[in-house]
């Protein structure tokens, strides 16, 4: 009996040992990650001629789930054709669990060399030192950044470092259903529309068409909450992220304007209305007159909407007379654990440069951050499609702002949106909601600082 107990113990220990051994390299690889920096790329300018092709591992969620005819795979194929000395081990992943997978690979020491990242992912990774600052490489290779829209580069900076090269960007404009405007005898909205006119127009277009007491047709839809902060020039915290500033009158006024759209004027569907049908499908079904949305809607709306004509204009001026829209973007970034930094940088330059952007743009995905591609191809690709006023997407880039970033942004954002949920239900006033939000956010800011 004793012997067999020993046997069990031994086999258990053996299994445990094997597992630990399998996990061990994961911990090891963290060390070189911190030390490998630019020198690898800066010093080895030597010709890489007849040598074995190097392989770099790339993961990407571009071009999202719709992945227009494999646009991103085509970009990679074009790169391999142009650079036979570099092989790409390319993996396309769905956006849903992308960041979790990526973080797990980093933790397990099997991180790729290059990854596509959205704004908040990139900022979180840059803050924890998982990404390479590209500035030294940009300088040493003399890479010209002026081809990109400056605002798209700015998004991917952190503490003066450039942590990603933009691969696509998008912003939000306002679509309008011409049929509903014609039926109400109202003039179409234009880029001069101010907030009061916007709300008045929305009220006139909000209707209980069958008289059953519930609203069937809404004047507009609520945008993602950070817009109502940006459009009055408010911020969630001060410049050095030490103090929550949502209790400032500016922020309160901004969010009050949002709550009023749903609760007071009832021109935008509430959470209850949206539970049955989301605003995207409401617009498709002709139930929303003025719908703020981005270029990712273009291909589906062109396919699906047959019953009415629609066009686009910029978002209206905010209550304080400022004009703002969202700026979203995706970048390619290099992980600091990469041992092929030179090849990785060559790859990044190609896929975010004019050639890569062109393929993505031709597939109709968002807007190219390379000016020449956006101005040349985006508008051309939109010919014969809706919205006819496609130029509005480029015009909006002028006043687009990106969502604030922080190493723990997703947590902060959940706190704010949770409080705003209550405010939108009318169970708490906006000032009280913001006070509660700040009470929860300040400790997080304090913790991150230390």
């Amino acid at each position, binding site marked *: 009996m004793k012997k067999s107990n020993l*046997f*069990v113990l031994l086999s258990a220990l053996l*299994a445990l040992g094997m597992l630990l051994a399998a996990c061990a390299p994961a*911990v090891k690889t963290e060390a070189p990650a911190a030390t490998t920096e630019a020198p690898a790329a800066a010093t080895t300018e030597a010709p890489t001629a007849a040598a074995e092709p190097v392989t770099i591992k790339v993961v990407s969620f571009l071009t999202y789930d719709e992945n227009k005819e494999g646009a991103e795979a085509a970009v990679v194929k074009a790169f391999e054709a142009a650079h036979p000395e570099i092989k790409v081990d390319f993996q396309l992943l769905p956006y849903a669990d992308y960041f979790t997978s990526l973080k797990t690979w980093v*933790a397990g020491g099997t991180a790729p060399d290059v990854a596509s990242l959205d704004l908040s992912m990139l900022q979180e990774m840059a803050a924890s030192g998982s990404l390479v600052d590209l500035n030294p490489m940009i300088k040493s290779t003399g890479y010209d950044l002026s081809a990109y829209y400056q605002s798209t580069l700015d998004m991917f900076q952190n503490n003066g470092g450039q942590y990603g090269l933009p691969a696509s960007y998008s912003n939000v404009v306002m679509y309008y259903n011409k049929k509903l405007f014609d039926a109400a005898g109202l003039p179409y909205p234009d880029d001069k529309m101010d907030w009061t006119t916007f709300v008045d127009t929305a009220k006139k277009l909000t209707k209980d068409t069958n008289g059953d007491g519930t609203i069937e047709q809404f004047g507009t839809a609520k945008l993602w909450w950070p817009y109502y902060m940006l459009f009055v020039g408010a911020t969630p915290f001060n410049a050095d992220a030490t103090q929550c500033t949502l209790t400032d009158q500016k922020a309160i006024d901004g969010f009050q304007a949002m709550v009023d759209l749903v609760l007071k004027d009832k021109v935008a569907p509430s959470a*209850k209305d*949206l539970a*049955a049908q989301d605003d995207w499908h409401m617009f498709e079904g002709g139930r929303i007159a003025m719908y703020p949305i981005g270029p990712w809607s273009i291909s589906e709306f062109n396919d699906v909407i047959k019953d009415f004509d629609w066009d686009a204009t910029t978002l209206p001026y905010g209550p304080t007379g400022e004009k703002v829209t969202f700026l979203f973007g995706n970048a390619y970034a290099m992980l600091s654990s990469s041992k092929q930094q030179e090849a990785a940088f060559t790859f990044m330059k190609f896929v975010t440069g004019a050639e890569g952007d062109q393929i993505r743009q031709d597939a109709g995905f968002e807007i190219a951050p390379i000016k020449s591609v956006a101005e040349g191809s985006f508008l051309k690709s939109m010919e014969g499609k809706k919205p006819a006023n496609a130029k509005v997407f480029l015009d909006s880039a002028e006043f687009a702002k990106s969502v604030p970033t922080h190493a723990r942004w997703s947590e902060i954002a959940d706190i704010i*949106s949770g409080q705003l949920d209550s405010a939108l*239900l009318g169970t708490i006033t906006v000032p009280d909601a913001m006070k509660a939000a700040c009470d929860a956010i300040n400790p997080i800011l304090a913790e991150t600082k230390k």
Partner: protein
Amino acid sequence: MAQAQISHQPKTFLSRIRKSTQEAFWGYVFILPAMLIIIAFKLVPLVVGLGISFTDWNLLSSPEFIGLQNYARLFTDPVSPIVFKNTFYYSLISVPLNLLISLGLAIALNQKIKGLAFFRTAYYIPVVTASVAVSAVWVWLLSDFGIINQLLNAIGVASVNFLQDPKYALTSITLVDVWKNLGFNVVIFLAALQDVPDELRDAARVDGANERRIFRHVTLPLITPSIFFTAVMGVIGSLQAFDLVFNMSLKHEGGPARATSTIGFYIWQNAFKYSKMGYAAALSFALMAILLVLTIIQWKMRSKWVYGEK
């Protein structure tokens, strides 16, 4: 070993030892595959998880040892009392309700009625249906345009905002949980009811007991082991509630305003949304401790009411 003792063949001490070790050896070989899986996917993660709960780790930078700070945070985090309260509410409603309804159904299904096989299957279907599908259907049923509000309107009651009103959201999800998991208990109770010997019931009837008394004093005591089992499993399952909350709350946010966030959901949020692996692990161990205590209490109490446990 027991076998060796009752064997009639006289055996030397040594050969007996050899025989029993050999048997034990093959025994262990047979359980080895299962043991390896348990060790690799349960025990090792458990131990590693305990280690993680003492660290500050966002997956990206290497874990930093911070002692008991994650456990201390359980008491300072403004969200944790909300999620614990929600979870206990969930459990307190769903476990007793599930037991009562499923016992009633099991008794009904134990009668000789037409289409019995159909009903027995019907009640089990929700159990084996993916909770994503169940959630999607119930989100529709409970929506403003859903059939439940239509029926309420038809009898002159105003629409209830089942999933977006913090007053009703958690209760609605809890009731869907009861509906979904009813079938599991029904099957257990049905098996237990069919195990109750007819002789005992007949004997009671001969002694002049009516149906109600037979149920109270013969049937019910005999199925208490099953009630005990389903109660323990129910408490464990309900305190770990996650999937329905994730799928039924708008945008998977556990809202409105945290009204439907359970401990399980908050663990997921901390681990995979906020990248706070250490805190998520600490929450998991706190939950495990609570489950352990509750299960021990239930175990100790069983001698008071479970038949055959003295």
